[in-house]
């Protein structure tokens, strides 16, 4: 017989963290691993490298990484690093295998498209769940590991640092702001000038969306996680999902923003029975695993009665790729996500009574 209690409690906690991080596990459509792109072709580009950029030392919460010369074999872990490296002209040799919103290469479609455009080799993928596949990373012979927006542990950092200089998060796991992350990666790749320009461009792009849609200004929003029946969690400021929407000009519903976040997360778990906390929210954002999941959740009376859901000022994202892309702010994800995302928000906004 099974003794489910202890095991599943730990497992649940792990899952809770993973969900909070938006890493949806358990949906892995086992894609065939891409044959490791021919290791002969060094995939880095030297254009845009600052003079005297190396050696450089980058501090993180878990230790310091010293990079002596322009990295050629970059490995990325976590969110957004792949995007940023590629947009700086460096195609990683290996990336964390994505299991939510991924395409057949195990990466995000906007990354794959950009790599094909550059003529680079599709990166090899490695698993990070339930643990980082260190031997797969070692086989890639990396000279830089980028994980500035990730949840790697101190022990994992030590192991990875033995393989190559490793850049972890500067503060808390999964809590690195998008521009901080881009600056860290720019510095590690010796392309500070270029990355600063990209950050400025992104800010302009987001501001343009905001000015082009002045109706967003007065609207309040909440971004919730409710894909598990009976659950209701609210993503709080600091979470990239929330930051993207704020950048477009909307404001978090004040009563929602005032809720304390659960320990070590940027979400407030409140439970579906407290759905009336969302009564004063103009636009409600959420994501679902798929349409069956959406139907199942929307059938719950407590969910269905949420005013924003009732009047259709509601952005339920069932397109996993769009859900992921709207969770990043990177030079690659923004052009992929925002045109469609903004259209969805405009439609929801038109239903705000």
């Amino acid at each position: 017989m099974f003794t489910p209690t202890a095991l599943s409690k730990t497992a649940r906690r792990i899952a809770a963290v993973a969900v909070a991080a938006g890493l949806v596990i358990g949906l892995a459509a086992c894609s065939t691993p891409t044959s490791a792109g021919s290791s002969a072709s060094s995939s880095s580009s030297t254009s845009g490298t600052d003079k005297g950029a190396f050696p450089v030392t980058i501090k993180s919460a878990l230790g310091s990484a010293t990079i002596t010369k322009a990295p050629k074999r970059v490995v990325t872990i976590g969110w957004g690093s792949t995007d940023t490296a590629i947009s700086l002209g460096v195609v990683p040799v290996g990336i964390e295998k994505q299991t939510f919103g991924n395409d057949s290469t195990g990466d995000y479609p906007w990354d794959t498209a950009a790599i094909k455009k550059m003529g680079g080799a599709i990166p090899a993928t490695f698993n990070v769940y339930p643990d980082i596949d260190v031997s797969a990373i070692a086989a890639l012979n990396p000279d830089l590991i980028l994980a500035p927006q990730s949840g790697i542990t101190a022990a994992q950092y030590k192991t990875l640092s033995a393989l190559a200089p490793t850049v972890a998060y500067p503060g808390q796991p999964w809590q690195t702001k998008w521009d901080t992350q881009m600056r860290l990666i720019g510095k590690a790749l010796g392309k500070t000038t270029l990355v600063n320009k990209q950050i400025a461009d992104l800010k302009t792009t987001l501001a343009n969306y905001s000015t082009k849609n002045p109706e967003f200004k007065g609207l309040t929003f909440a971004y919730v996680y409710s894909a598990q029946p009976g659950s209701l969690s609210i993503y709080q400021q600091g979470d990239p999902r929330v930051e993207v929407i704020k950048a477009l000009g909307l404001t978090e519903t004040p009563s929602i923003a005032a809720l304390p976040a659960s320990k070590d997360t940027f979400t407030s778990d409140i439970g579906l029975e407290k759905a009336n906390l969302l009564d004063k929210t103009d636009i409600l954002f959420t994501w679902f695993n798929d349409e069956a999941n959406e139907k199942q959740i929307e059938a719950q009376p407590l969910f269905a009665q949420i005013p924003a859901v009732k009047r259709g000022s509601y952005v339920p994202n069932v397109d996993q790729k769009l859900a992921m892309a709207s969770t990043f702010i990177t030079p690659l994800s923004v052009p992929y996500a925002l045109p469609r995302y903004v259209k969805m928000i405009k439609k929801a906004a038109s239903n705000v009574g």
Partner: protein
Amino acid sequence: MADTATAAPPRAGLSQSGPRRASPRARTLLPALALAGGVLLFAVFLSLSVGQQHVPLGTVWQALVSPGHAYDDTVVQSRIPRTLLGLLCGAALSVSGVVVQGLTRNPLGDPGLLGVNVGASATLVTGIAFFSAGTGQERVWLALPGAFAATAAVFALGSGRRGATPVRLVLAGAVITAVVGAYIQAVSLSYPQVFDDYRFWVVGSLAGRDASLVGQVLPYLVLGFALSAILPSSLNALALGDDTATALGAKVGRTRLIGGVAAALLCAGSTAAVGPISFVGLAVPHIVRSFTGADHRWLMPFSALVGPALLLLADVLGRVIAAPAEIEVGVITAFLGAPVLLLAVRRMRGRS
């Protein structure tokens, strides 16, 4: 006027059964049965009232009899499915516990002994792993055939030339559980996404269940309750041993067959709906036996009332102690059940 003292409700404890058997016992146990019903009713209201959002009992009553459009009404309505499932599954698990303990003459028996839980789990992980089934609706249909197949296998394996004997049944149950359990481990550990789904299911929870589940499993449970209802006298006879029972005119083989089918229907229906909930089937008959004695004619109806009351109260406790998060009812019953099990073992040692 001489009868006033005995007609009054029992005040302190329950009297021992005297030499005259039926009437004094009925006089004390009938009010106790009403009391158990009252406790169950209270548990139902508590289940509708307590949670992340507290709804006062008066409002619960109003939401049930004349729902307006207040938010509290929606909260109460959203708790109706889990309360109904708690009622049905609590009764099903404890009644099947009574039947299994009676059939196997094993006081430590619980419905899992017949392989129901591992059977349900086995078809469930198979479905998730190889046929990518997994939503709530599909799970019922995945869990039921496995539960029945495993029970049938236990009975087939446990039947010798003279039919199933208690010892053989228990041994067969242990064998099936070990073999099928190994398969479940192998599949769930080889496929991480199966493990992820499976571990949520295997804990057993009333939360977030769809109201339609009640309708789906109701036919199995009703049939199971109906079959159980005809068993108490036969189980009483069986308790005397196969030979004496046969000598008294009881049909031992037929009792075992009906009992096996009833227990499988009840436990499989409950497991399919809410996952395997541990200890209810084991503990409730023990709790009840401590004040009714071994007579199945009392044991069965009391268990049908005490089981759901216990399950609902455990569910309410799970909503309160980790608020705003919830602890699955399966975890709570395991915590509550363990001391009862220890007590039961100690009592058995005392007797032998």
